[in-house]
């Protein structure tokens, strides 16, 4: 057993971290929070594409570097840590794996190289009415055309292609690739809590939908489990950054003649943040292994990683505001960036209540 990263994986973290630190700053996130015409940080996206980072989970024959889930997890944590404002998560944790696992040669050739090179923005449209697939799907595909509403869809306003969860004529859930630039698609921008990561409502009225064969309800559930693990790494990166920002502030800010970080009321909350983050990290490690090795405990691992990461992320974000006191409730200060991104990452795959039930059902003892 070896429950840590390899030297190569550490090297990936260092290289990706350096690129992200240089190009994704909290100042930059503030600018995009105020004004985000393109929907994402185009410069950073180009640099990640040039560096080959967008193809990390895509096979070499389709223009990627063909690395595994653990390497992708390492990158995910760095993206979370730097609050990178890019359409990465849906594309890399859901769309690319779905196409790799279930796509035809033609579908793979059409999409994967374009994702790896950054030429196409892709997203996954799973949510309906605040729930996530497969249990909540009402969108329908009939005769190759899709009808229905998906909301909220991250990057739905500017993505070229969406992976959409919908029911077929027999009422069975499946996954479909839909060209969002084509006919039968209406996009409506929504007021995203985290405006650095815009959301849209997609209304399909007879748009052509290209089925991923074999992507049934069980496959969707498994894809979502995998994505939950990778998103957990983003959440851990994000929460870790919030803790770092809070710690720095607590060392600088003085009250009653000493840094506030010297008071137990502050330092114990920082310690609790730390403990929650490390607990989530341990579950995420197991999740990364279960995903990379396609282990039978994937569903359990995903739910544990998701639940502890949601808790760590929310606690770290909220306490970061409080530890900053008055400045923490101002728009120009950094703390609300963490809270907003935290809600975005929560919205991607649904709240804890859903995942608690998924966990109980994943346990052998709970499933009877």
């Amino acid at each position, binding site marked *: *057993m*070896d*429950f*840590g*990263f*390899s030297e190569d*994986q550490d090297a990936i973290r260092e290289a990706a971290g350096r690129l992200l630190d240089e190009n994704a700053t909290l100042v930059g996130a503030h600018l995009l929070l105020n004004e985000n015409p393109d929907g994402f940080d185009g410069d950073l996206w180009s640099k990640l594409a040039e560096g080959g980072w967008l193809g990390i989970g895509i096979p070499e024959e389709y223009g990627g570097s063909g690395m595994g889930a*653990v390497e992708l997890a390492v990158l995910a944590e760095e993206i979370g840590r730097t609050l990178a404002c890019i359409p990465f998560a849906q594309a890399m944790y859901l769309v690319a794996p779905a196409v790799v696992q279930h796509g035809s040669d033609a579908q793979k050739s059409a999409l994967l190289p374009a994702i790896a090179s950054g030429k196409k923005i892709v997203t996954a449209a799973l949510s309906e009415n605040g729930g996530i697939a497969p249990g909540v799907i009402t969108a329908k595909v009939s005769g190759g055309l899709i009808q229905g509403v998906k909301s909220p869809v991250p990057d739905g306003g500017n993505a070229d292609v969406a992976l959409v969860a919908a029911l077929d004529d027999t009422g069975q859930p499946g996954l479909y690739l839909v060209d969002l630039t084509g006919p039968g698609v209406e996009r409506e921008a929504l007021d995203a809590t985290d405006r650095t990561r815009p959301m849209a409502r997609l209304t399909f009225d007879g748009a052509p939908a290209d089925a991923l064969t074999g992507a049934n309800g069980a496959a969707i559930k498994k894809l979502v489990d995998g994505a939950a693990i990778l998103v957990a790494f983003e959440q851990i990166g994000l929460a870790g950054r919030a*803790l770092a920002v809070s*710690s720095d502030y*607590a*060392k600088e800010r003085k009250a009653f003649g*000493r*840094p506030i*970080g*010297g008071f*137990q009321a*502050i*330092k*114990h909350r*920082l*310690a*609790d943040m*730390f*403990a929650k983050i*490390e*607990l*989530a*990290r*341990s*579950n995420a*490690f*197991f999740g*990364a*292994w*279960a995903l*990379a*090795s396609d*282990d039978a405990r994937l569903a*359990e691992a995903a*739910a*544990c990683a998701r*639940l*502890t990461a949601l808790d760590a992320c929310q606690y770290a974000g909220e306490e970061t505001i409080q530890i900053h006191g008055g400045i923490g409730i101002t728009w120009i200060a950094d703390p609300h960036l963490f809270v907003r991104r935290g809600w975005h990452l929560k919205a991607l795959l649904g709240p804890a*209540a859903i*995942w*608690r*039930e998924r*966990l*109980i059902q994943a*346990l052998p*003892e*709970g499933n*009877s």
Partner: protein
Amino acid sequence: MDFNDTSAEADFRAKVRAWLDDNATLRDGSKTTQDTFMAHNPDQVVQAGKWQKQKADAGWAGITWPKEYGGMGGTPMQQVVWNQEEGRYRVPPFAHLVGVALVGPTLMVHGTEKQKADILPGLLAGDGIWCQLFSEPAAGSDLAGVRTRAKRDGDTWEITGQKVWTSGAHYSQHGLLLARTNPDVPKHKGMTMFIVDMNDPAIEARPITQISGAESFNEVFIDGLKVSDANRVGEVDGGWRVALTTLMNERLTLSVGRAVGGAKTEELIDLAKRVQLNGRPAIEDGEVRARIADFTARQRGLEFTSYRIMTSLSRGQEPGVEGSIGKLLLGRLRQEMSGFALELMGSSAAIADTSDAESLRWRNEYMTAPGNRVSGGADEIQRNIIAERILGMPVDIRVDKDVPFRDL
């Protein structure tokens, strides 16, 4: 990142399992795990000694200990494999934990060559049980406040004072004792560590009844105990450094060894299937499912945290930041889980039905868990350690730091 045994680990596991099959019996269907940290009655202590000897004779007692002291010279990961396998069998409680996990490693660092040669092999073989005479009525979380006084007269020290919360003192033969040797310097600089004979009539151990009803620790009165200077560990007035080594090993033992301790969430699910809530099995209730799911995610996280610690150790690294969270989170989890189990029992939670082992078990768990949050450094101390040593927060204001001990 590989969660499976390597082939070497699998071989080792097979050997361990073969030996355990020949020397112990598997636990029956009951998932009830034993609280292995503290022995509760004299018979268990005798059985524990026999089991320790049996393991030592076969070479399993000190898997990570160097061979020169009777150990196997193995890896921390092999220790984990052993612990996992031994946990599947019905074996006596690990009464020798303080000696093997705390005192032994401390002597390896700070002991004289003679002390190491004389003591370590026997300690491993279960020749007597060790206790840790550190805490005092006025020195718990603030351990450096010890008042037990050791005065030197030539090659002999005379020790007088009182210790408390000493696990197993009433059945221990040996003790590691921290005493004040110089009250004229600040408190951290005037203590010395000694090895003492618990059978000496100058020492009296009185068991303390805990809220769980168990008597696993003691108050210990020391009145004019004579100790040879040969039984001093480390420098005169250098006892704090020795104590820190012991405490570091204690934290590690408590967080690694016990990260999977206590009741399992699987047991809680079992219970929730059998009891009724609002006219249906409790397991069908949404709140019950949610609570159990949260407990499960936390318990798994602690289990995997212990594997992270073991991975650091097996790579030859100091345990990283992950080492500090296990003890902080485990006690609280045990307390909440057992409290919730009692809730599920409804009004039956107010009684312990002697015909129902389960009601006793959850009450015992609930009354034991608070001790988890105190022993080895209270929750508040763990949080200070995380905040100060890992996050770099300013240390607490210590008005006593530069003041001679006698003026405090």
